[in-house]
């Protein structure tokens, strides 16, 4: 910039003494070359940004288009009555949920006939369309026996194949007859959709629920692992921020400059580059095998991720402490503040925005980290009895979002693949809200000098 404004005058001034004054209108060769290279450089920059934006758009598009189906689910909304006699009868049988399913499918066939559904269907077809409604129905009536004998509106999850048909994953062309779904069932599905019995609704259980078994992709939810990630982030934040900031203040403001502190500095920089799996195996050895903390618990995950995040926070905090002008320290010391007062009253508040940025980068890294979680068992975990007493704290077994996504992506049923993309959307939203919080905090701390 400066040489651009200076060069015409600077070039001209000494020329004045020579015989022929040079015209400013004529651009000389060197200037032309320089301008051309400047233009080229700008073009490279724009091209790089353009490429980045292109890939970002492609990524966002594929994530959203693949992940959106995970946020909808297909349900059958039906009214259905179980009488006291049917209840007693079913409870007396050996396969109780199966007995309810028989009652349900029979009731459905009568309902469908009343609605003038002309497509031929049998009880088995209804079973294939509806997932396994027996246990849902049984649990409802066991919990609410007073509802027996009156019509109750149920919202029952459709089977995952029907779900796939509804969101376009399965079509009449690529479906193969199996015990899960047959081509002829699709006619019945079409009719039920037309009559409003089969509906696509927002998939709340995906947001709030826990992971399901491999055979039930429809019931899989990311909620439990969101909570797991949240607890881990709390551990990371409350350990790494104070420890990291204290360490960097000491190293930057108080520690003497000698070989030992140099060694510590080099080691901190190196730690930031250590592969995360190394921290994972360290966590397994130290926290689980030596300290006997519970496996798969967010506290262990949080501790491991704290070790990973510390170098990032220390490096960025030291950089932002360094960036505070020394005149501020002099000013404070000059009026008789102690070193600690100078740091805490003046330097630290000015460094706060930078510290927050470093913290959020560290936390974002930790949030997306999968490898160490594999080693401490926060993966491949199927919740039982969720939500009662499950994700209630730091010590209970849980999963974390990236580990959960990894698990789903590795499963064979295509419906889980879709869940993985949906999980990524939730992960990104979590990250985004963390960033927004950091930006708000930054704004509050930012001060000009």
């Amino acid at each position: 910039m400066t040489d651009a404004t200076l060069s015409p005058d600077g070039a001209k001034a000494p020329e004045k003494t020579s015989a022929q004054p040079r015209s400013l209108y004529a651009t000389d060769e060197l200037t032309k070359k320089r301008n051309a290279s400047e233009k080229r450089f700008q073009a490279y920059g724009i091209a790089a940004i353009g490429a980045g934006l292109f890939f970002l758009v492609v990524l966002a598009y594929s994530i959203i288009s693949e992940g959106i189906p995970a946020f909808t689910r297909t349900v059958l909304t039906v009214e259905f009555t179980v009488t006291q006699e049917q209840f007693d009868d079913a409870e007396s049988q050996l396969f109780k949920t199966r007995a309810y399913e028989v009652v349900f499918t029979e009731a459905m066939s009568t309902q469908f006939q009343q609605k003038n559904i002309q497509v031929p269907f049998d009880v088995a077809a209804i079973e294939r369309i509806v997932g396994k409604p027996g246990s849902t129905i049984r649990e409802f009536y066991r919990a609410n026996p007073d509802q027996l004998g009156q019509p109750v509106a149920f919202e029952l999850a459709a089977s995952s194949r029907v779900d796939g048909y509804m969101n376009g994953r399965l079509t009449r062309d690529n479906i193969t007859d199996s015990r899960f779904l047959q081509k002829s069932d699709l006619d019945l599905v079409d009719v039920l959709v037309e009559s409003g019995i089969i509906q696509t609704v927002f998939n709340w259980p995906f947001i709030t629920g826990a992971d399901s078994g491999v055979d039930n992709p429809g019931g899989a939810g990311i909620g439990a692992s969101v909570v797991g990630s949240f607890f881990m982030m709390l551990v990371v934040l409350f350990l790494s921020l104070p420890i990291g900031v204290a360490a960097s203040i000491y190293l930057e403001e108080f520690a003497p400059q000698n070989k030992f502190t140099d060694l510590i500095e080099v080691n901190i920089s190196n730690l930031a580059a250590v592969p995360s799996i190394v921290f994972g195996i360290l966590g397994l050895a130290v926290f689980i095998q030596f300290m006997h903390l519970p496996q798969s618990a967010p506290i262990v995950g949080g501790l491991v991720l704290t070790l990973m995040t510390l170098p990032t926070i220390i490096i960025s905090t030291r950089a932002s402490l360094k960036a505070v002008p020394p005149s501020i320290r002099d000013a404070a010391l000059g009026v008789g503040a102690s070193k600690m007062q100078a740091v805490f009253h003046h330097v630290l508040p000015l460094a706060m925005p930078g510290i927050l940025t470093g913290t959020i980068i560290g936390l974002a890294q930790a949030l997306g980290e999968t490898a160490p979680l594999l080693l401490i068992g926060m993966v491949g975990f199927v919740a039982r009895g969720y939500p009662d007493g499950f994700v209630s704290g730091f010590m209970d077994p849980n999963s974390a979002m990236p580990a959960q996504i990894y698990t789903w992506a590795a499963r064979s049923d295509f419906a889980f693949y879709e869940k993985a993309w949906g999980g990524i959307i939730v992960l990104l939203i979590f990250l985004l809200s963390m960033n927004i919080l950091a930006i708000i905090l930054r704004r509050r701390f930012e001060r000009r000098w």
Partner: protein
Amino acid sequence: MNDMPKIEQATDMTDSKISANKVQVYYGDTHAIKDVDIEIQPRSVTAFIGPSGCGKSTFLRTINRMNDTLDICRVKGSIQIDGEDIYDPKVDPVQLRAKVGMVFQKPNPFPKSIYDNVAYGPRIHGLARNRAELDDIVASSLQKAGLWEEAKDRLDEPGTGMSGGQQQRLCIARAIAVSPEVILMDEPCSALDPIATAKVEELIDELRENYTIVIVTHSMQQAARVSQRTAFFHLGILVEEGPTQDIFTNPVDKRTQDYITGRFG
């Protein structure tokens, strides 16, 4: 360090505020200040002049131990204020700096309100028992620094929003607020325009009544205008020290003469 005869200490107390004896300052291997002996009179302005890098700022900073913040800096010899060796292990540099205030080359107000800038020192030293007392200290410090009229309506505005000259006077007010006995000024006007400089110089002249002032300056005219005594430093050595009048009109040393007549520097 503290082996000075008692009698000499006693005479120091009556004669001079600050008394330096064979002061050596080292920056790592560099011997920055060599054998400086100087007596600084109370309630007067003493100017340190000399070419860049001659050690005048370094010596100034030894008087309130600001050099302590640099790991590589070592000080030998003795500097006494009111007969007490400030490098004695019993001396807490924090207490020393409350007694010996400092104004820096570049105005460096805290990025806080004008009020908080002045109130910071009294707050950390517990000089005010309540808000009213603190208000009084702030008001009187700003008055003494000649800034009250300009600042009284904008005490809540940031100190960094003032002009350079006002900022420097704010820094002087901040130094005064902790009621020091000595004020060290390290080229306080080098970043200011002539009008702001004139105001600060006027202020220095007024402050002389109550404080012992030591000022480092690059401008010989300034030294001549504001100081009663002048010390000329060259290459880490105190070449000559005496009444300002004498130094400028009748220097003893050839180097001083060369410097003030502009032959080098």
